[in-house]
Every structure is written in structure tokens, then in C-alpha cells.
């Protein structure tokens, strides 16, 4: 039965009128624009898709040349080469920027082939045009986002070396660019300023604010030794720049390697922790003021200096860790992160930040994260401190 049907279709196709009708219907109904010109380039046929895409009716297009669509964005050499190729009997394939009747420019993936008669003489040209403007825009956006991503990756690969400490940080952005960040800045007196922050919202806008915040913190951390004073100055700068309702939570911790002290200030950031050598919580580093960028007059104070002992661990997180949710909408919470560290106290800081990230991802089902996941670990390393003592 199938063979019989196929034979019937073939027979119909072979009948001159049947095949002609089918071809006409195909050209008339295809979504791509089809233009047929004579050898001189005068348009003899356009299909309905051409009318729809370009805004020119068949009546307006017939008798004119494809220069009708010329955008002026390709130079004469381009058209010269195109025609040379066509007259030599070779098809042209390429992307051409055309102009619609409305004046709007659009990208068109175009194939132009010559039609020949029985003597091999070129009689017509057939042009098939596909509007690829949306695709092109998407590609351009992805290209720029990729550049932004690479720049941000470089901002987030900072490493720190401080005598007596083993320090590491990691960021995993939910989108190609993110609003979380961490940084290590060596201050004039040899102390290390550790920053961890989270810009409200996600994506490209948050990434720009993150880059700005990072630049301010880097600058002020070289001018001010007090963490609270740095936050107050960064806040004043951000208040002027941020969009309505946008803000940054930021915790700055100052590690003093000589006196084995840590002092911090936190602008609305989630609690961070100092773990005893046993893994028990020794100190909770609560926020000391509102987030940055909201209130012009916000002033921030630093915590009293907290002395650090060998084997203690500073755990700095963003809410992408604590608020990561599983299928049942239970949150990962700080407890699970701290429990993980307690069970792996012998691991290096780099192993711990990697481990936290992997545990969070596994907890939330392994899918793409819904928020940026950032952690910084500073271990008071026994070996190094022993050597310097």
C-alpha cells in the first residue's frame, strides 16, 4: 500500500503540471523570502514571505532591482565580488544587511544562485533570504556577556598569601555574570582585608555594581585601616550611583598576621563564623549596619578585635550557600556548611571552599544554581604560625 502511494506521488510529480503546481506552492508558502531576477538584475518575482519581511508589495518590487533593499552598509567592492561570482556561475552565500521599506535594517542570510537555460546560459538569478536578525542579536549579546563573564572571572580569581594563614575563596555565578564577590587586599601595614559581598538581584546589572563596589573597596582599603570607615566611605559613594532599591551587603574582615587578630564590619551581610579548632562556633560575625547604597548617612563601626588561635577557621558565606533549597524547599542553611567544615577540618582552605560548593550543589539536586554561591575560608594554619612564632 505504501509503495503504491509512493508510486502515485512520483507519477504526479513527473506530470509537468503536478510538479509545477507543487513547486509554486512550495515557493509561495515557504517562510524564507524568494526573489527571482532576470540576468540584468530586474526583479520578476517575489514571494509572499518577501512582502511580509521587507514591507514591499510585489507590485512595488517587480521591475526594480534588489538595490531596493540596499542598506548602504556594504561597500562597492562587496557588490562587485558578489556579481563577479554570480556571473562566473558560482552561487553566493553570505550575510547581507538589508533595509526594509520602513527603513529598519535587518540581517539576512542570503543564497543567490544562477538559473541557466538548456545551452548553459544564465537567464535568471534566484535569491533566498532568511531573516537572521534575532539570531544575530542573540549571538552578539552572548558574545558581550561572555566577555563580561571572562572579566568577572578574572576579578574573582584573587588569591591571598598571608603568613600563618591558609586562605581561599570561590564564586559560582547563577548566570553568566553575577552579583557576588570576594576579594583580598593587602593593606599598607601588612594586614589583609578580606571582602565578601552580594549585590541585590542577579545578572549583568548586579555584575556592574559588583565591579564598582570592588573598585571602591580596593581604593578605600588602601586609605583606611578601619573596616567600618571603609564601609562608610563605600556606602557614601554607592548611594549616589545605585538604582532605586538596589543595595550591596558586604562584610570586611581585617586579618592581622603579627598579632593574630581579626576585626570586622558588616553592612547587612549574613552572619559569618569563627570556628574553634574543634569545629564548634566560637564567634558569630553579625551585621553591624544596614546594607550599602540605601541610606546616605549610614555609619559603620568595626567589631572589637578578636584574637585568633592556631587551628581556628573563619567561614565567610553569601546567601547563595545558606538559602540554596532542595526539592522540598528546605534550605541548606549555615548549619550544613559549618557541619561540612567540622567534618573536614584537616582539609586545606581551597579544598573546603570547593567542598562547600559541591555539597550545596548536591543538596539542591545538582541543577543550575538559582543564586550565586560564594564562600571564603581563612584557616589559622598551625604549621606557618608555628614557624613564625
Amino acid at each position, binding site marked *: 500500500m505504501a509503495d503504491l502511494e509512493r508510486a502515485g506521488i512520483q507519477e504526479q510529480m513527473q506530470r509537468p503540471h503536478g510538479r509545477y503546481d507543487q513547486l509554486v506552492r512550495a515557493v509561495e508558502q515557504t517562510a524564507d523570502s524568494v526573489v527571482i531576477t532576470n540576468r540584468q538584475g530586474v526583479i520578476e518575482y517575489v514571494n509572499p514571505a518577501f512582502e511580509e519581511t521587507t514591507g514591499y508589495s510585489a507590485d512595488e518590487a517587480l521591475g526594480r532591482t534588489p538595490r531596493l533593499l540596499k542598506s548602504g552598509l556594504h561597500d562597492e567592492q562587496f557588490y562587485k565580488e558578489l556579481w563577479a561570482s554570480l556571473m562566473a556561475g558560482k552561487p553566493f552565500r553570505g550575510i547581507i544587511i538589508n533595509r526594509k521599506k520602513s527603513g529598519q535594517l535587518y540581517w539576512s542570510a542570503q543564497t543567490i544562485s544562477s538559473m541557466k537555460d538548456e545551452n548553459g546560459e544564465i537567464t535568471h538569478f534566484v535569491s533566498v533570504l532568511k531573516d537572521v536578525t534575532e539570531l544575530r542579536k542573540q549571538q552578539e549579546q552572548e558574545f558581550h556577556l561572555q566577555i563580561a563573564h571572562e572579566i568577572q572571572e578574572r576579578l574573582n580569581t584573587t588569591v591571598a598569601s598571608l603568613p600563618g594563614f591558609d586562605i581561599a575563596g570561590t564564586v559560582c555565578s547563577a548566570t553568566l555574570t553575577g552579583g557576588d564577590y570576594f576579594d583580598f587586599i593587602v593593606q599598607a601595614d601588612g594586614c589583609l582585608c578580606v571582602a565578601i559581598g*552580594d549585590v*541585590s538581584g542577579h545578572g549583568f546589572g548586579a555584575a556592574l555594581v559588583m565591579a564598582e563596589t570592588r573598585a571602591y573597596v580596593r581604593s578605600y582599603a588602601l586609605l583606611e585601616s578601619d573596616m567600618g570607615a571603609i564601609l562608610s566611605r563605600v556606602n557614601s559613594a554607592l548611594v549616589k550611583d545605585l538604582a532605586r*532599591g538596589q543595595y550591596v551587603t558586604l562584610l570586611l574582615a581585617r586579618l592581622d598576621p603579627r598579632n593574630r587578630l581579626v576585626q570586622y564590619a558588616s553592612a547587612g*551581610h549574613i552572619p559569618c563564623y569563627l570556628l574553634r579548632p574543634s569545629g564548634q562556633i566560637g564567634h558569630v560575625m553579625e551585621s553591624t549596619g*544596614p546594607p550599602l547604597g540605601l541610606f546616605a548617612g549610614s555609619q559603620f563601626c568595626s567589631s572589637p578585635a578578636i584574637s585568633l588561635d592556631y587551628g581556628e577557621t573563619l567561614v565567610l558565606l553569601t546567601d547563595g550557600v545558606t538559602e540554596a533549597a532542595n526539592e522540598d524547599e528546605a534550605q541548606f542553611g549555615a548549619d550544613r556548611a559549618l557541619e561540612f567544615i567540622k567534618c573536614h577540618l584537616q582539609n586545606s582552605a581551597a579544598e573546603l571552599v570547593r567542598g562547600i560548593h559541591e555539597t550545596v550543589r548536591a543538596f539542591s539536586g545538582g541543577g543550575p544554581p538559582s543564586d550565586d554561591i560564594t564562600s571564603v575560608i581563612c584557616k589559622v594554619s598551625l604549621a606557618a604560625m608555628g614557624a613564625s612564632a
Partner: protein
Amino acid sequence: LQIKEKQINGVSVLDLAGRITLGDESNQVYLKIKEMLGKGASQIVLNLAGVRHIDSAGLGTLVSGYTSAQNLGATLKLANLTKRFRELLNITKLVTIFETYDNVDDAVKSFAKKA
């Protein structure tokens, strides 16, 4: 997000239901607050009883609403906060900015006490 407006003893109460998150929902809340302020409302209570989730952008919007009100000499208070949102206000220290109440009645009455 659904917003219903009512008046109780001269106080404008906005019943919010749904999510206040990045994008349209946040804008909707902010525009509504601006609209109320534009109409001359000077005492506003946001009833968050029906709000399931507020993200960081939503919190930012509420702060903007608060600041806009303050700049016009008006006051914006919050009622019926979920446990999680209360925690978020605590963490960010914004609990020191907003006046918060366990229910709408208390929030409305608080205006009368001051007056």
C-alpha cells in the same frame, strides 16, 4: 502579586498577596506606594500577611518605598511579617529602620497614639 487598598481610621492599608521579587512584582509595589503618596496619603501600612516570599530586590523596594514616604513627611509601617522576612530584616539591620507590627490593627493604632 495582588494589591488591595483600604482605609482604616484614616490610615491607608495595602493588603499584599503573592511574591515581592525582582522585576514586575517589586515595581508594582513601589508604584502603588508612590501612587498613594501622590494622592496625599501620609500614613501607610503594608500588610504582608499574604506575601509568601520577598527576595533581596523586594526588600530593596520596600526600603525605597519607606524612603520616598519619609522624604514627603509620610510614614510607612509593616504588619504581619513572616518569620523569614523578619529574619531578613534582622540580618540586614533594617529592622532598625522599619516600624513593624504583629497585625494591621496594632499598626493602625500606633498612628493614633502618636497623633
